[in-house]
């Protein structure tokens, strides 16, 4: 495959669109939980606020600094998870992580725009960029369940 084609497969239009116009950027004041994710290897940063209504993630706000993959993944995730229950989010998270680690497996249909990140799985060093937002969200949910308000995740 040519260099150009391989790159196009990694950097799909949808990814660049989310990178350019990240969704759910608005900060949520007085959120139930705030979570920060940081990848010390490359310096990618993500911060998010989570507001719950019982088991349901009512609202999410996400911002960050980092490469296109990390930031697009966070934006796509925010669209997908808002309004879902914790159980549903856990299931989606598992599906996404599986898509990232098993390039050959079939892509689940319920991942929405995140499906565009499928090409990342072929670039092993970029997988952590794509999963940072999910790990941060996972820690945030755990903190919520423990009753703590803030959490900081360091990916290694």
């Amino acid at each position: 495959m040519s260099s150009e084609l391989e790159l196009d497969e990694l950097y799909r239009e949808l990814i660049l669109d989310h990178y350019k116009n990240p969704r759910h950027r608005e900060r949520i004041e007085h959120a139930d939980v705030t979570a920060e994710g940081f990848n010390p290897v490359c310096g990618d940063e993500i911060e998010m606020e989570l507001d719950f209504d019982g088991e349901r993630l009512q609202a999410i706000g996400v911002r960050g600094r980092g490469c296109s993959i990390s930031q697009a993944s966070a934006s796509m995730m925010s669209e997908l998870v808002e309004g879902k229950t914790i159980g549903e989010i856990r299931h989606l998270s598992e599906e996404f992580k599986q898509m990232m680690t098993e390039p050959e497996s079939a892509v689940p249909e319920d991942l929405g725009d995140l499906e565009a990140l499928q090409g990342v799985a072929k670039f092993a060093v970029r997988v952590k960029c794509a999963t940072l937002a999910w790990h941060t969200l996972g820690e945030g949910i755990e903190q919520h369940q423990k009753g703590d308000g803030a959490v900081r995740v360091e990916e290694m």
Partner: protein
Amino acid sequence: MTYDVEQIRRDFPILERKVRGRPLVYLDNAATTQKPRQVIDALVHYYEHYNANIHRGLHTLAEEATAAYEGARVKAGRFINAAAPEQEIIFTRNTTESLNLVANAWGRKFLEPGDEILFTAMEHHSNLVPWQMIALETGAKVRYIEIDDDGRLIGDDVRAKINERTKVVAITQMSNVLGTINPVREIAELAHRAGAIVVVDGAQSVPHMPVDVRELGCDFLAFSSHKMLGPTGVGVLYGTREALDAMDPFLGGGEMIKRVTYERSTYADLPNKFEAGTPNIADVIAFGAAIDYLEALGMEAVREHEIAITQYAIDRLSAMDGVKVYGPREAADKGGAVTFNYRDIHPHDLSQVLDQYAVAIRAGHHCAQPLMRRLDAVATARASFYLYNRHDEVDALIEGIRASDRIFGNVVRAGA
């Protein structure tokens, strides 16, 4: 002898390699350098002909291995003009371990609450974190010298921060991010007048320019084999006899002792006092071959070649719209590392595009997170050159950067 880059390249088997069908353009030399055939052969020759443990065997192989290992020590010492190479060169695993050795063995013995450890705003984590750790343990304080927007140390700040409480001045001779060459000799004079020791991180300088420890007047100098054509797993700590003698050992075990009883031990003389356990014999010997290679080329010639190619890279990058180059703009003032950002394309994305064109650079924070914050950059891209790089490889870098326009051309990030 004229400097023939084509002839040099023929000594490096890896430079024949193709990546994704294109010839490899290796511009990540500040991270690690490639190895010439001579170094690889020395490694293989040792394992095939005289593999043995050193210093204690009384058989032929052990004697040969010991002679080659100690020979590499003398080569390393002469390379930096140490007064007593046989005693003043300690082999470690890498620069990081060398710096940790000093921070621990010297710091634990001599630092007291209220003492000050002074480093610079451009230190690699390896000349920063060990000092923070020993400061916590001893009650000493860490301070740092500020840099200006061109990435040079601010002279007034140097003079202001070296005082009678300063016990250690830890400074890189050449920044791994900005390439800045620091005035170590002048700072060492100020430091010594104040009664402080001077610890120099030479990981980037020793491979790329002539370095003379007696001229610098430093107490310690740390550097790594793998950044100067040698194998990974070998670091050097140079220390003056006086400084090394004053310190207690860092690690205890075999090789570093004279007499051991169940209750106590006495320690070996230099350098063995600091080399506990079986060292990395094979790689040290091959490191000796790397030094031979550099000596044959001459470090003045290597430096001259790098100045030319670095200046070419700075000029070409600076001429591109949207490129921001960090650090000094004159290659004569800096080493062969050129750090930059292109438009608002994240360096990881840029590096990914370049890799598709077989151009290897480094992207990230370069183990210098505080410096990245000072530069107000999340991360940067870094191209770094060595003695085998050609001008047309700079051209390939520029082409690769342009190729990123095709993908990120119309991307302007909201709120970024």
